[in-house]
């Protein structure tokens, strides 16, 4: 589904701030994979997502999505196929527009000059009702009035309204309180499973990194240092993961927000 071959990215090349954020990284994501990604601060996790989504042009290498070379494709063109959620709950939605308008924007149905159709409104209502958060009765309210958790749920709904070929979740529950985070995570899991989405999720929660999905990446120094799946993964505990990290990187995992349980 997603194939990265030898991609590299260096920020501020030739200056004192030079930072090799991704270094000769190759990976192959299979259709239907749900990959969790862990790693230290500055390991290149978000940079990897930015490269895939097209926030910048990589210095070298190729990116293919579903057999199509997207290396040079503009970000907004890629995003028709790639859904994305961020840690900052304000990024995913337009606060001054209503829930309904936000959803319509991402559904992207009908001609450019057509208003939101009745059928779409009904569909949005049903989708919101499924969340059981009472949002279906607030469709005419601006998203700016919602809580961070509610906004993130709307953003999740927006990025999965049309089935994306790839869903990128960049610590999308990290800014939420534990109870809300759990709820959003459960919702994410059910949407991904139900729709059989191909998904990559960065997390700082070691336990959900092992519990969710079918495959786990560990990143360090701009590359993937561990890629486990299947039986080998199901036998792993959080401690094993930390040991493994020390072995491959030579130091302790130093993500200051890491959660062990």
């Amino acid at each position, binding site marked *: 589904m997603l194939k990265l071959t030898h991609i590299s990215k260096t920020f501020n090349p030739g200056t004192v701030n030079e930072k090799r954020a991704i270094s000769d990284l190759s990976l192959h994501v299979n259709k239907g994979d749900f990959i969790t990604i862990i790693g230290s601060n500055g390991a290149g996790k978000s940079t990897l997502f930015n490269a895939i989504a097209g926030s910048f042009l990589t210095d070298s290498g190729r990116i293919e999505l579903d057999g199509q070379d997207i290396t040079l494709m503009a970000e907004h063109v890629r995003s028709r196929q790639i859904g994305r959620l961020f840690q900052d709950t304000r990024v995913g939605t*337009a606060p001054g527009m209503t829930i309904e308008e936000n959803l319509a924007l991402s559904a992207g149905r009908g001609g450019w000059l057509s208003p939101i159709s009745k059928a779409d409104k009904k569909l949005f209502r049903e989708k919101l009702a499924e969340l059981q958060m009472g949002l279906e009765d607030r469709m005419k309210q601006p998203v700016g009035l919602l809580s961070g958790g509610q906004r993130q749920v709307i953003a999740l709904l927006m990025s999965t309204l049309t089935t994306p070929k790839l869903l990128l979740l960049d610590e999308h529950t990290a800014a939420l309180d534990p109870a809300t985070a759990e709820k959003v995570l459960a919702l994410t899991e059910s949407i991904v499973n139900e729709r059989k989405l191909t998904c990559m999720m960065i997390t700082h929660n070691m336990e959900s990194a092992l519990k969710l999905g079918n495959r786990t990446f560990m990143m360090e120094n701009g590359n993937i240092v561990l890629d486990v799946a299947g039986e080998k993964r199901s036998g792993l505990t959080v401690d094993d993961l930390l040991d493994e990290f020390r072995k491959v990187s030579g130091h302790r995992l130093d993500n200051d927000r890491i959660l062990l349980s």
Partner: protein
Amino acid sequence: MDFNSVMSLLQTALELGLIGSLTVLSLFLSYSMLNVCDLSTDGCFTLGAAVGGVVAISGHPILAIFAAMGAGMLSGLVVSFLQTKMGIDSLLAGIIVNTALYSVNIAVMGSSLLNMNKTETVFTMMQGWLKGTFLENQYKLVVILIFVTLAVVFLAVFLRTRLGLAIRATGDNPAMVKSSSINPVITTIIGLCLSNALTGLSGCLLAQSQKSVNIDIGSGMVTIALASLLIGNAFFGRGSITKRAIGAVVGAFVFRLVYTIALRFNMPAFMLKLVSSVIVIIAIAGPYLRSRLPILQRKLQLKSGKGDK
């Protein structure tokens, strides 16, 4: 002041306010929706007046309307092209185009003054049609109301279409638009083209209404329109798009009315621009200063020794 002079005062304020309201609607689109402060408004207003004036003088008052809107659109295209494709800051792009338009406008007009006293305009046409009806003396208002209504209806419908939503999102959350499938370049270009078409229309109507075009006809328009927009926001700021668009029109009228009344009380006409600047300053600085108030209060409390430790 007798009833008749009050009514004629009101009518003048209404006419000028509503003509100006088209520029306010233009800023409603660019400033409130797209979050771009388009400083080419003054030049574009004059461009609309100049092009509209020249075409009307050549005997095509209705074509003049479309020509003025087209010219405004072209000006908007240049401004948006500079900021989206040439990497020029949006404020600077507006100022640059505004400066360039001064030369363009004189070139269009052939001099710095156009006299349209004997020219047929959309207003004189309407005056002919309404002769003998009860609206005989309101012919100007009728024409202006038609255009303003069309503009408000257009914006209210357009801003709810998929393209309109995309334009609003571009101004509302650039970070989201960057990672969504909206192309901010396209939405900015379309938004500014439409917005400047309205400004051009506004200039054209003023030219045809007052039967003359002066090269300075648009000077200070951006501040006057912004002041009107912010007055409108104060009334209808938190409502649906339709309400806010109507609010922009009401703001334009209120601004004109206050200005007309002030003139009655012997405020010199040259004060218009100072007053509009002060209104813009108050409207924008007000909320900021209010947010600073608690800090000032605490500082004062501490100084007087009454603050908690």
